[in-house]
């Protein structure tokens, strides 16, 4: 009986949590401009999304493209900068180390709106005109701390003798770095990259404050502008469905694999 209530509660929450997304997914197969008005099955919105003809679909396509490029560049730069920083911080002594870690935590704790306003003021103060570059710089600012935090545990768990051994066996510091350190850090760098990539994809507030007035749109700012105009571009429906399914499949694969490997270890 208890078990039944427990399960019922979980499913009740899940149904409520997913109702809007499922609703959007169902109506992604209808051509109707308004949600909730079923006009028959059609895959036209999907076709429009991938080969945009209507003006609204074209600008949506452009926004998706911008979002992906910005996320890729910022995640990549964050990964490199964060990994180098983590190696440096790991080798620092007590006080300097805690100062660096404290600074590293500021962008994580700061709400987006503070980060956004502060960076906006910085670019105004330095007379830097805002656009693509400032958005990427801003994204690197809030992404890198997560890379540092993903790489640091790899360093602290590492046996420092392995690196020393490589040096003793005649490797140059550069070789030891490339052949020993980097492979050891790679998993942390990859999860840092993924984290940075999704943070960048998700961001609305910081982008909003640092994109300037050149009309740069990412997916989030596009949705924001769209919603303010009142009508939701119908092509957003298939897009949301695709994003949702992709993330669902990735997460399930990832977690099932993780559970399996944990079982094998046990």
């Amino acid at each position: 009986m208890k078990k039944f209530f427990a399960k019922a509660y979980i499913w009740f929450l899940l149904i409520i949590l997913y109702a809007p997304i499922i609703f959007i997914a169902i109506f992604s197969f209808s051509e109707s401009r308004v949600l909730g008005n079923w006009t028959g099955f059609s895959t036209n919105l999907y076709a429009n999304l991938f080969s945009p003809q209507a003006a609204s679909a074209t600008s949506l396509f452009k926004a998706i493209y911008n979002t992906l490029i910005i996320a890729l560049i910022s995640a990549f730069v964050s990964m490199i900068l964060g990994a180098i920083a983590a190696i440096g911080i790991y080798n620092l002594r007590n006080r300097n180390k805690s100062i660096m870690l404290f600074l590293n935590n500021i962008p994580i704790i700061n709400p987006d709106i503070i980060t956004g306003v502060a960076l906006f003021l910085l670019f105004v103060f330095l007379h830097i005109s805002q656009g693509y570059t400032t958005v990427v710089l801003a994204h690197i600012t809030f992404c890198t701390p997560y890379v540092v935090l993903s790489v640091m545990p790899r360093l602290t768990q590492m046996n420092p003798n392995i690196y020393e051994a490589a040096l003793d066996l005649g490797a140059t510091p550069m070789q030891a770095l490339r052949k020993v350190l980097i492979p050891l850090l790679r998993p942390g760098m990859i999860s840092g990259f993924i984290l940075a990539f999704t943070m960048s994809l998700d961001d609305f507030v910081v982008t909003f404050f640092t994109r300037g007035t050149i009309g740069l749109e990412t997916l989030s700012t596009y949705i924001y502008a769209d919603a303010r105009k009142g009508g939701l571009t119908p092509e957003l429906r298939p897009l949301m469905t695709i994003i949702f399914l992709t993330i669902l499949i990735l997460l399930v694969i990832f977690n099932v694999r993780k559970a399996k490997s944990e079982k094998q270890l046990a």
Partner: protein
Amino acid sequence: MNKRSSWSLPYLIFMIIFVVLPLILVLIYAFQDAQGHFTLENITRFFSDADALSTFALSLEIAILNTLICLLLGYPAAWILANKKYNRSAVTVVLFILPMWINALMRTLATAELFNVFGVTLGKGTLLFGMAYDYLPFMIYPIYNILSRMDPSYAEAAEDLGATPWKVFWKVTVPLSLPGVISGVMMVFMPTVSTFAISEFLTNNKIKLFGTIIQENINSSMWNYGAALALIMLIIIGITTLFSNDRKSVEGGLI
């Protein structure tokens, strides 16, 4: 390998420019007038502006209510998910954390659309409902994380010593899960108190929250007043952070 400590230098310089300097600029702009002279007027203006003050109070109220709702709904869910008797499937857990990975604006918009279709009038009720939608996973995940790693022998020991299940729950499970609750509260409270856009979507622009006021001032070039408001929010966040330093460890461990 000690000279590698210099490798932290590029990041230090980067952070001084993009983290420290911007925050100092918020402070400077907050205490300046448009001509760049020192003034306290931005701060006093906030405290004499009834509109801004009531928005501020409303934002705090909504954030606290939302955090409570998420805690009340989320704690039982996390407890059930972490309990091997009721849940063995990793997929159910994934379903709960999945929304964290989807663009918040998209989720909010989908919720608002659903309200519209069913003819629910947008207002404070829908705002609270929609925000609970958005932030529930952020409450469940850290609590689940700590509960599922908890050593079950503590609860068993309490049972063996004669505690009723109810007592075991309140005297053992809840205190041990407190760090997870604190990170969950942080992860919900901080974004809700500073939110903007989400509240506009969910109330059809009827309810303005503090974040929206900051944004409006910055966007209409009232940088000094905007900076002063941001500074006030920064103080709120600072006070909240004093209660916990756990937030980053939870977010960092998402993958």
